[in-house]
């Protein structure tokens, strides 16, 4: 039994069904949210504390991909965050754009959702179409796809760790916000000097300085190394030209593999160095102040669809999704309060719902003539599906003014079993760490409380590393986990490279299968991942065109506004738990570094096309106002 909140139970054969005797099983009552500013009594009481209660808006949140605004109310005297609201400020619109189009367009159009992770959108789209079309790639096509995925992550993780989140830990940032820490860092020996070469933590921080720091420059260089390898198969980055339903449209030869190999092995050394850097940084902060463990803290609730298909196990069918899903290098998993409650893709799928109570969309289940109602009551295997499941969802944008009590974001609120879940590079290694019967043991060893990596020697000697599931889950651990994922991605790429060379030796070099777009009614789903976690595309196709297309990205999960049950999204929850450890004397000196470190630890990526169709006209750049313009309430901000 993996569901606590949804009315789903399992029979003796493990088939899911709705619990009997429950009227309107998916109905719910909306829990009213009372923001501080809309509760007069609460507001008066807080303001009586002499101005230490402040509204602080981060708009936009910088050094994230796309458009994110974050509203907080903070108590600067007691160093607490009182209220949080996460706003996706621009409408994506791809789901609307794709309606009525040839399904194959989805691969190229959805890619444009994101300039960092375009390739994974293309792949997820291909997976969804393969399920709908009833095809799957040959082994070499899957190997190619796996390599592309790894290379995309080898671009993404260094970028995040040193260009986006890293500057928050650099000398200028630390010196400005916590000068006492900078003082301490200058005398703090870096324990892993033998690997990364830095004698003190201060030296590390200096080289993380944007634009001038060597670690910053090195990360930029390593992103190029990954991109060079990527384009050998993908054609270009971030929007590959070669991903098709049924595989890859490029041919691959030995020289391609050699060129890719030369670049992957650079990440063995680099990954070890990055792990050493982030281990030293994190432990330094914890030792200086144990409260840093609580920065960005939230429950251990994560969701991961799994990635990197076994070339000999994947068949693209929903019927066998539990089997081929489980065979992935990164297995699927849902973790609730630290416990792995399921590794079955079908159970992961049926537990997903998207809510729009606090989002700029209409509830499609309300009918209203445009609503879908509850079209698919079950999945293809007969398991119950919520009317709020992506297969049932319709994207009906409804722009309005921002109101923290009502609607305030263009992100929906995805939930699994009606719980807010986070996802990320770390959810892959976490699910892997807990996995039983794991089959890819050449370089990985799940221990139940961690994951061991056996890294081959390159310039650095071969080494064993272990990522341990942390006791407290927060911002610093997210960054640390991501550092380990450089090694994780590189090792999986390496294993796939070896499989590819073996296939080549056997003459099994076909990279795709022919296909035709079916004209009858089909549905499909792509379960994959992006640099920052869970990614799914659900499609409904009829008469050769897309009837419905729903994308759930990792940042939809994590940047989500509150759900109908009043539960905050992960960013909101994590920031609300964050102690304000910054060193400020006056309220006006407050920079919010702990809040920003928290938000950036999720590696936000807010795919942000602003184009929507409304019948005959195109609205360009429909920007919903910044967080500081909440209705017209007369409050000064």
């Amino acid at each position, binding site marked *: 039994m993996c569901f606590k909140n949804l009315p789903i139970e399992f029979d003796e054969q493990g088939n899911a069904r709705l619990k009997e005797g429950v009227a309107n099983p998916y109905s719910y009552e909306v829990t009213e949210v009372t923001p501080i500013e809309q509760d007069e009594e609460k507001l008066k009481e807080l303001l009586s504390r002499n101005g230490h209660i402040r509204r602080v808006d981060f708009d936009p949140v910088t050094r994230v991909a*796309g458009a994110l605004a974050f509203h907080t109310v903070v108590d600067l005297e007691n160093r607490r965050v009182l209220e949080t609201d996460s706003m996706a400020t621009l409408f994506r619109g791809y789901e609307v754009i794709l309606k009525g189009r040839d399904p194959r367009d989805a691969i190229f159009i959805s890619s444009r959702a994101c*300039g960092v992770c*375009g390739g994974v959108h293309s792949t997820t789209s291909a997976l969804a179409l393969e399920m709908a079309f009833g095809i799957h790639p040959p082994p070499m096509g899957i190997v190619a796809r796996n390599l592309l995925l790894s290379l995309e992550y080898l671009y993404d993780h260094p970028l995040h760790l040193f260009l*986006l989140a890293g500057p928050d830990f650099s000398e200028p940032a630390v010196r400005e916000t916590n000068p006492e820490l900078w003082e301490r860092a200058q005398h703090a020996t870096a324990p892993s000097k033998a690997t990364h070469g830095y004698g003190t933590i201060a030296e590390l921080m200096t080289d993380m300085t944007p634009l001038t720091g060597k670690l910053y420059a090195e990360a930029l260089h390593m*992103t190029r190394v990954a991109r060079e390898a990527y384009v050998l198969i993908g054609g270009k*980055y971030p929007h590959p030209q070669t991903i098709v339903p049924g595989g890859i449209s490029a041919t691959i030869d030995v020289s391609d593999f050699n060129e890719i190999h030369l670049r992957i092995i650079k990440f063995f050394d680099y990954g070890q160095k990055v792990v050493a850097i982030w281990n030293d940084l994190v432990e330094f902060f914890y030792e200086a102040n144990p409260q840093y463990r609580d920065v960005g803290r939230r429950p251990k609730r994560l969701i991961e669809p799994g990635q990197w298909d076994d070339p000999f196990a994947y068949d693209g069918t929903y019927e066998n999704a539990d089997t081929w899903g489980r065979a992935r290098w990164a297995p699927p998993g849902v973790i609730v309060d630290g416990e792995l409650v399921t590794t079955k893709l079908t159970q992961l799928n049926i537990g997903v719902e998207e809510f729009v109570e606090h989002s700029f969309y209409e509830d499609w289940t309300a009918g209203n003539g445009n609503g879908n109602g509850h079209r698919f009551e079950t999945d293809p295997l007969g398991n119950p599906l919520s009317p709020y499941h992506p297969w049932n969802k319709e994207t009906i944008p409804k722009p309005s003014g921002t109101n923290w009590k009502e609607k305030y974001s263009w992100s929906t609120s995805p939930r699994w079993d009606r719980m807010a879940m986070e996802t990320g590079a770390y959810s892959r290694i976490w699910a892997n760490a807990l996995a039983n019967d794991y089959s890819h043991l050449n370089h990985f060893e799940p221990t139940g409380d961690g994951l061991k990596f056996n890294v081959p020697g390159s310039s650095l000697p071969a080494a064993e590393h272990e990522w341990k599931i942390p006791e407290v889950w927060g911002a610093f651990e997210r960054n640390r986990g991501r550092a380990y994922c450089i090694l994780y991605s590189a090792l999986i790429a390496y294993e796939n490279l070896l499989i590819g060379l073996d296939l080549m030796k056997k003459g099994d070099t076909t990279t795709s299968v022919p296909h035709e777009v079916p004209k009858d009614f089909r549905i499909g789903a792509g379960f994959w991942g992006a640099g920052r976690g869970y990614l799914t595309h659900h499609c409904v196709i009829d008469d050769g065109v897309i009837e419905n297309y729903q994308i759930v990205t990792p940042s939809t999960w994590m940047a989500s506004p509150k759900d109908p049950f009043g539960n905050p999204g992960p960013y909101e929850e994590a920031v609300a738990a964050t102690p304000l450890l910054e060193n400020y004397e006056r309220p006006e000196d407050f920079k919010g570094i702990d809040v920003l470190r928290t938000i950036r630890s999720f590696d936000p990526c807010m795919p942000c096309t602003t184009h929507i169709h409304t019948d005959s006209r*195109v609205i*360009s750049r429909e920007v919903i106002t910044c967080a500081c313009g909440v209705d017209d309430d007369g409050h000064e901000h």
Partner: protein
Amino acid sequence: MSVGPWVADQLAKARASGVEVEDVSYHPVGFSQNLQEREPYERVVLVGSVERRRAPGTVEAYRWDGELPGRDEIQERVSEAVTGVISLDNTLIVCGALGGLPDEVRVVEVEPEDQGWGDGFSRTIEERLPEVLEAVWSSTRP
């Protein structure tokens, strides 16, 4: 449609001696890295459509003064570039900061009329395309 890539396609057909044509709308940081690996150019001419609140269709050609904003904004532009935002301005700033551009950089811009997506150009821009092409050629001459 985007003006820059279209112009690159047209110019590439002309094959002028001593002039290399490239669609650089792929990755400002990547472009900077590529430039640094090549023999330095005497001059780079960048062309694109940029909204600056001019009358739609306004074509301007100028020499970039090379002035860069403050560190924080440069960092923001690099972050923007590596997360997929590509614009003429962030290409100039990122390449100016990270390196690769020669001393002489010329820019040809056209003010857009409609920044929506779709096939082709707006009518105003369509009518200005010959002028854009001529401005680019002029910018390449000694």
